[in-house]
């Protein structure tokens, strides 16, 4: 099949409407491009939303994780547990700060880390665990935190997929020592590009704030007594303004995403489509950024859907632990991560953004048509 229909349903959804446009213009006429009132307000609103004390806005989620790891003084000689099925920034930042990523396989049921597998990878060098709430579904945090406390290991929560999601009633991103989120155009809260780190520890917050801008505190003019080697990864005011609008809609959008997920699950069951959604654990309130299923003949299905104007994504087709640069950086092959490798062959992220509406049924119909016996 060579002809493709125009794309009608995309897995990537970038909201940008009149209210956001207005917001983006708000700081533009002013003289302050960064470190200004919009960033302040965005940080404040996010801490209120999460029920946390401190937030540090950055130029990206990756930058947020980087400043967090530096603030926790993770570096050469340290090992960091990162999920094998996850966005590459966890391993990337680990290597960037000079530490070694130890890739942990994930569970079949939720595609997330679990404490038993993590425990298997612990060593005397382990300094931190990066718990990615994959697709928006919470990692089982209590046993993980218990293990971490006993071993004096930090838990960093990657809530890039999962803002608004909960674990036993607690908001994701607020449970570990430090949490962070991304506001890139595919995330639940969008600021075009940007990230934020959260913590209740004032000392770490201060350090993260300094690391994001050459070692200076907010509002500092050029100063010569910097004691820390930072970088420049600040968020600009326009991004913060858009992020604030997006945050104000987060709960409403997540509710729609949850309805979409229910509609998919129901349609898949009713039409007997042989794809398998992941489980939702009783302690998780799913953030549902990505509605992911495991699909037989996945690549054929993708082509079939694409020809019908349905654009899907894969999170993730190429597991980071096998990426050439990452293998080279650690200097040895960690061996297969069986579940991750299997998922990489089967998973597909179906379009489920808040504007999908009845489009969900169109996607289900198309999948049913693909799997129909001929």
């Amino acid at each position, binding site marked *: 099949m060579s002809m493709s229909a125009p794309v009608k349903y995309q897995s990537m959804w970038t909201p940008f409407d009149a209210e956001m446009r207005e917001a983006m*213009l708000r700081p533009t006429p002013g003289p302050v491009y960064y470190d200004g009132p919009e960033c302040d307000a965005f940080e404040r609103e996010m801490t209120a939303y999460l029920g946390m004390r401190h937030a540090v806005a950055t130029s990206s989620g*990756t930058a947020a994780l980087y400043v967090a790891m530096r603030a926790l003084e993770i570096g050469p000689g340290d090992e960091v547990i990162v999920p094998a099925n996850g966005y590459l920034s966890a391993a990337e930042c680990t290597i960037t700060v000079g530490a070694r990523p130890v890739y942990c396989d994930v569970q079949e049921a939720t595609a997330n880390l679990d404490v038993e597998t993590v425990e298997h990878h612990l060593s005397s060098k382990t300094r931190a665990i990066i718990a990615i709430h994959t697709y928006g579904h919470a990692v089982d945090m209590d046993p993980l935190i218990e293990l971490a406390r006993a071993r004096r290991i930090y838990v960093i929560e990657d809530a890039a997929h999962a803002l608004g999601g909960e674990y036993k009633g607690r908001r994701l991103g607020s449970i570990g020592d430090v949490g962070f989120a991304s506001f890139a155009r595919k995330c639940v809260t969008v600021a075009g590009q940007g990230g934020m780190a959260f913590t209740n520890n004032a000392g770490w917050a201060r350090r993260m704030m300094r690391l994001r801008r050459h070692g200076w505190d907010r509002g500092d003019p050029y100063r010569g007594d910097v004691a820390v080697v930072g970088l420049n990864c600040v968020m600009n005011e326009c991004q913060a303004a858009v992020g604030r609008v997006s945050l104000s809609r987060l709960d409403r959008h997540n509710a729609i995403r949850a309805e979409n997920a229910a509609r998919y699950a129901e349609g898949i069951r009713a039409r007997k489509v042989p794809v398998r959604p992941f489980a939702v654990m009783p302690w998780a309130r799913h953030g549902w950024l990505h509605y992911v299923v495991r699909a037989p003949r996945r690549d054929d299905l993708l082509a079939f859907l694409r020809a019908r104007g349905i654009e899907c994504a894969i999170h993730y087709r190429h597991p980071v632990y096998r990426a050439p640069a990452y293998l080279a950086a650690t200097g040895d092959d960690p061996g297969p991560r069986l579940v991750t490798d299997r998922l990489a062959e089967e998973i597909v992220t179906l379009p489920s953004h808040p504007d999908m509406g009845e489009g969900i049924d169109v996607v289900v119909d198309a999948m049913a048509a693909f799997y129909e016996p001929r």
Partner: protein
Amino acid sequence: MAKVERRITTRLTVVDDEIRDTVLQVLERTPYYAGPETASFEAEVAAYCGVGHGVAANSGTSSLLLALLARRIGAGDEVIVPTNTFVSVPECVLFVGATPILTDVEPDGNLGRAIVERHLTSRTRAIIPVHTFGHPVEMDPIMDVARQRDLFVVEDAAHALGARYKGRRVGSLGHVGFFSFAGKSITVCGQAGMAVTDDADLAAGMATRRVHGWNQEVGNVWHVADRLGLNLRTSELLSAIGRVNLRKLDAWTAARAANAERYSAKLSAGRAPVTLPVTRPDQDPGWLHYVIRAPRRDALRAFLRERGIETQLHYPVPLHRQPAFQALAPDPSAFPVAEAMAADMLTLPSHPWMTAADLAAVADAIVEFYGE
């Protein structure tokens, strides 16, 4: 002395109707990142500098970082860095795992061949000459050394977009050059940076590391990480603002140069005992900062502040005295020129929107201070 109402500031961030309109247009089309505005901004800055490639990033610091990463400068390597510069330079060198070798500067505030040669070792891999205040470094002798020793030369042109050395634009003189577009820089788009180079491989190496090392050929579904990278993209909005300001840059530079000429004339005529900036015949400076060397600098600064005149210090504390970098060069006596400059240099307001009256008021106040 009563305080005056007038305030003369060292910098002004201009947002005019053209910028407002441009922002609105961008917002109608593509609000976020990796779009046509950034591609055009890259092409326009590269063409302006007379080189083949531009790679935009979210800050000048990030641009330098990308250049070092792309050239694989790392552990065990030494990088020559003048001590009289912005913290981002040693910051990036340390970030990639290399060692900054801090050096003194020539009396003009720039790196020179003799200084470079004094610091060469078998581990030297790169030199980062800084076009301080917008005055181009004497690059030919430095490039000679670099050729002989196969060293990578990164021009720090954060102060100097548009400046020329022997008729050639800064940024095109080394292997790669980078600019900052932050609030105080010469072409402003809020917060961003760019590296320019004629080396296509280097440009591609920087571009892929700017976005997680993704292999650009794999497409947009999910990407293969060929290399380690980070996320150092800039935004479409800022690129669009930068494009507007780039078109105005030559007019602004001319205004800054005229300010410099007036200052020098007035300060000489008033016999103020200050040292004025010197321009060699091979230099067409960018004049971002008009910097004098002033006896009793701090008293002069306070005197001016009382009269509503803001001044700045570039840089109040040289790198070798900053706690984060001190260990690199514990003996301040190795930096006599930079030490003397840190004690007596003063940046006067000289942005393109200064009126002749404001400029005269600053010069008169300096003459008055020394006449008392």
